[in-house]
């Protein structure tokens, strides 16, 4: 353990201290991992590595798997047509069988995006260390866990040892004071923060989000915020657990049997008064407007009532070059009003924004309206359980009547590994997390927005300022 235990500590420091298995000068720390989430795309080579070395999974009960990245979002009773995808999914199933790992298969009503089902089933808990071979593992930090994405070699390391070799990251407090204006969502908040600190501003840091605007967020909103920490370069983002966290978890299948005792432990986690972060930045919630990305990384973002920037708006030559190349790819010149940008596609889904509150926010906009004739729009729930809940509330009818496609759960067009993808040149309003070139299909042009902004854009055929929607 470290000598800092009696000093005021941050949430991060407490979790770190509590998971140190071995620390030695000049070596990486061996950190215990409480939970590893596994999906089909980044695990096959790790299991193969175990087999080649004759190793086993050290703690299969601390390992949970599902298929999400590659899965079709159409009728699940039909066979998967893409044979290579099918082989990858079958491989995950076989590996889970062989190594005794809980696997939620495609026909399980609990299947879904790994970062949606972890919290939903109560696997994700405050104070835990959680990893997954997926950069959006930061999502789970919303519960006051230290959660981050890892590579496949590290997946194998955790499978074999239930630990990870880690350098201790620095801490960055992103504090958002005051209350957000009506029509402004958690997605807008996090896009705004990424715009301010840029796409690599969080590199080397674990972020803790603090302040009134963060405390006010629901658990699902907090997941949206933490999810996108990696888009600012921070491997992990976290929010201190509070009553909302405990209320969310109470009664979920995988939470500790003695839940009240666990809550008492979890209450000790929030950052102590007087604890110091390596860096702190403060923002005002009232300044945040609905956000729309215009470029090819999530830091290239503007308020919906603004215009697309021009390269000359940037002082740094590398940033000018980045902006110019982003504008060219996006089919923009700079100077266009964001609300004038016309759309071909709308995608509501992903581990960022495919939970029930996201679907409710989108459905509220879509209700009684029609998707523009020029737009093709789809809604992909984050999990089987989200889908079921939405259907029990009639949201599927709202979406279908408005002309949205209503799909099965999966990552879908967030990364377009499955058949859901953009065609070259198509412009898409997407609730996902990355607007990289080709992310949603080669040549596709992605603008990241909130669920309500995406739904309104689907109806109008162009971006609209949701604050003026009536």
């Amino acid at each position, binding site marked *: 353990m470290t000598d800092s235990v009696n000093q005021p500590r941050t949430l991060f420091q407490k979790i770190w201290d509590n998971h140190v*298995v*071995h620390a030695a000068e*000049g*070596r*990486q720390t*061996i950190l*215990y991992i409480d939970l590893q989430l596994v999906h089909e*795309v*980044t695990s*096959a*080579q790790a299991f*193969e590595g175990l087999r080649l*070395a004759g*190793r086993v999974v*050290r*703690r299969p009960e601390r390992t949970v798997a599902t298929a999400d*990245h*590659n899965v079709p979002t159409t009728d699940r009773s039909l066979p998967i047509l*893409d044979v*290579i*995808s099918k082989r*990858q999914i079958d491989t995950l199933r076989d590996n889970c069988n062989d190594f005794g790992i809980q696997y939620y298969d495609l026909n399980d009503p609990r299947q879904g995006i790994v970062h949606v089902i972890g919290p939903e089933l109560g696997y994700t808990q405050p104070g835990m260390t959680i990893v997954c*071979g*997926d*950069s959006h593992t930061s999502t789970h930090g919303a519960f006051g866990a230290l959660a981050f*994405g*890892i*590579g*496949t*070699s*590290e997946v*194998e*390391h955790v499978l*074999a*040892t*239930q*630990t990870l*070799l880690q*350098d201790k990251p620095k801490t960055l407090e992103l504090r958002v004071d005051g209350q957000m204006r009506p029509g402004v969502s958690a997605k807008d908040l996090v896009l705004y923060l990424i715009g301010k600190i840029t*796409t*690599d501003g969080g*590199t*080397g840091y674990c972020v803790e989000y603090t302040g009134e605007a963060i405390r006010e967020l629901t658990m699902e909103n907090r997941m949206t915020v933490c999810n996108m920490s*990696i888009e600012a*370069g921070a*491997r992990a983002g976290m929010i201190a657990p509070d009553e909302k966290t405990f209320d969310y978890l109470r009664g979920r299948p995988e939470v500790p049997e003695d839940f009240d005792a666990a809550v008492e432990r979890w209450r000790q986690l929030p950052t102590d008064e007087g604890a110091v972060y390596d860096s702190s930045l403060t923002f005002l919630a009232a300044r945040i407007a609905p956000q729309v990305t215009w470029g090819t*990384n999530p830091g290239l973002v503007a308020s919906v009532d603004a215009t697309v920037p021009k390269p000359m708006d940037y002082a740094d030559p*590398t940033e000018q*070059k*980045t902006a110019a*190349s982003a504008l060219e790819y996006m089919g923009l010149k700079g100077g266009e009003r964001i609300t004038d940008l016309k759309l071909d596609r709308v995608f509501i889904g992903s581990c960022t924004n495919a939970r029930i509150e996201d679907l409710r926010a989108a459905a509220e906009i879509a209700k009684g309206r029609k998707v523009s004739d020029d737009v093709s729009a789809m809604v992909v729930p984050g999990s089987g359980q989200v889908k079921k809940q939405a259907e029990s509330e009639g949201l599927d009818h709202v979406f279908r009547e408005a002309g949205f496609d209503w799909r099965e759960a999966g990552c879908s067009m967030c*990364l377009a*590994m499955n058949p859901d993808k953009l065609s*070259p040149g198509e412009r898409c309003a997407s609730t996902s997390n*990355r607007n*990289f*070139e*080709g*992310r949603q299909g*080669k040549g596709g042009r992605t603008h990241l927005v909130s669920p309500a902004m995406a739904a309104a854009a689907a109806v109008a055929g162009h971006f609209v300022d949701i604050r003026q929607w009536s």
Partner: protein
Amino acid sequence: MKCFTKHTGLVAAMDRANVDTDQIIPKQFLKRIERTGFGEFLFWDWARLDDGSPNPDFELNQPGVKDASVLLARRNFGCGSSREHAPWALEDYGFRVIVAPSFADIFYNNCFKNGMLAVRLPEDIVEQLFGRAEKYPGYELTADLNNCTVGDSHDFSTTFEVDSFRRDCLLNGLDDIGQTLEHEDKITSYEGTH
């Protein structure tokens, strides 16, 4: 794990910031369950035209850099997805060293796990190297992990920092898992008390 001590190789310069792992290896190639064979798909969407033929404008398709093994890049190289397929593809293509002002954390880690050296140098020095790569045809750099230096044959030399643990592992090609399992008693004792 593969070891790395010293490497001299032809430099390919990629003058773009924030190159993300979706570009390094696009998602359509992530369905494979092997670790090898990703090199031919490296930077696919940039390297190929719509008909699959090589894009003559792409940096790595320039005649002089076909055999490059040192990649000179801009800030925040390897951002985005955690896919280790990105370093697998770079390594399989033939790269042994990547030099940039900064790397995304997960990618940086993944490079070292695959015997590739990622070298962080200050932005002004990287700028200088871009200038030299343009000035000298067939420009080569030597990266020496023993001495933590990068240099060329035109009187340029600089040192770089890398943490001693990563350096040790890479110099000796140590297996991370094997090393951790040397502390298995500590893991077991941790599990007994938590």
